[in-house]
């Protein structure tokens, strides 16, 4: 059984936000207008959190890409009253949108604030309608959504492996953000395999997890020198 995980090397990340753009295109994420954004109603499955240090003009900005952590012990699952969010066998925390009643307990419970609520009916400019991804459903108004580690890509990779009559390799499946990263700051793979890149990197001296003391055990591991 695989246990999918991600490693983000902050020393390599240039903060270009290509991962965000790729994610938006891959997962049919709705475009939110400027006024609505001012109310904090934007939707991002991966977001660059800014940490500004120092006083102007001697400031230093650290940018931290933050997808869903796909925790081993997710707080969101415990609070969902309708069982719309759950962790599957491979540890991916998923949402069944048609079950979600939009109570937003999970958005509040998630310590990493990765969950977004659909305040509006999703809309795209006419020119973009043909470019939506057919493999990902469009979330309606009133449901919560978040990063799925591009689970549809895993299904497609399995399909391909089966058609070629072989076992699924970890290399077959990577999320859109990892694929788009121009500075190779993101890695994805099987944490159960002790020799996979993510496993080796996760044991590195620079490795740390966000809010580790909460005991959520995230499957997204960060690498940074002196963070």
């Amino acid at each position, binding site marked *: 059984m695989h246990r999918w995980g991600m490693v983000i090397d902050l020393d390599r990340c240039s903060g270009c936000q290509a991962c965000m753009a790729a994610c938006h295109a891959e997962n049919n994420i709705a475009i939110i207008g400027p006024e609505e954004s001012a109310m904090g109603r934007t939707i991002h499955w991966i977001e660059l959190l800014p940490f500004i240090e120092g006083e102007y003009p001697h400031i230093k900005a650290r940018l931290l890409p933050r997808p869903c952590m796909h925790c081993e012990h997710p707080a969101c699952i415990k609070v969902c009253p309708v069982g719309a969010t759950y962790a599957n066998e491979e540890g*991916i925390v998923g949402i069944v949108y048609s079950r979600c009643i939009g109570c937003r307990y999970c958005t509040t419970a998630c310590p990493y604030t990765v969950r977004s609520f659909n305040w509006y009916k999703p809309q795209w400019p006419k020119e973009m309608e043909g470019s939506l991804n057919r493999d990902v459903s*469009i979330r309606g108004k009133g449901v919560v959504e978040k990063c799925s580690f591009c689970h549809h890509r895993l299904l497609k990779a399995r*399909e391909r492996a089966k058609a070629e009559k072989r076992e699924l390799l970890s290399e077959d499946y990577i999320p859109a953000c990892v694929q788009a990263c121009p500075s190779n700051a993101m890695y994805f793979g099987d944490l159960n395999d002790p020799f996979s890149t993510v496993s080796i990197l996760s044991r590195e001296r620079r490795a740390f997890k966000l809010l580790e003391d909460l005991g959520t055990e995230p499957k997204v591991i960060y690498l940074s020198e002196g963070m």
Partner: protein
Amino acid sequence: MKPFLIGLAIGTAILLLFINFGSSFRPEQPISFNHKKHHEQGVECATCHSYFKEQTFSGMPKVAVCMECHKDSLTNHPDEGKIRQFHEKGGGIPWIRLYQQPDHVFFSHRRHVVLAGMECKSCHGDIGQSEKPPTKPWVKMTMKWCMDCHTKTKANNDCLACHV
């Protein structure tokens, strides 16, 4: 009490009328297609439903495919002329889709037919032997129905397998 009873009677009558009308409503395809006859002539499913081996959808018959054989009159069937009319008009044949999945369900024909090796008739019944186009889906595609089969065949029963 009396007006209430009269109202109730009228209400029930209208309801019954609606149910009766609703159940008798059947969508009619633009051409009365005979699956059996085509099947007997050696036409395979994939000739008209061309995508089910490669794509999630299977595709509706295109008028150009019909025209390959029906360019000139082959039979005496009154509907044959309609094919040529649709061809001249352009824009294809307005087939009515019977099998519709809601937006939150992902279904792939390729995954079921090619990778799992299922036959068309597991979901579409003996469509190859039908002489008239069906007016309703052969199965009610409920989640229970899907999941029962997935359990029986030991296929993936994870929520995310269909609800992506």
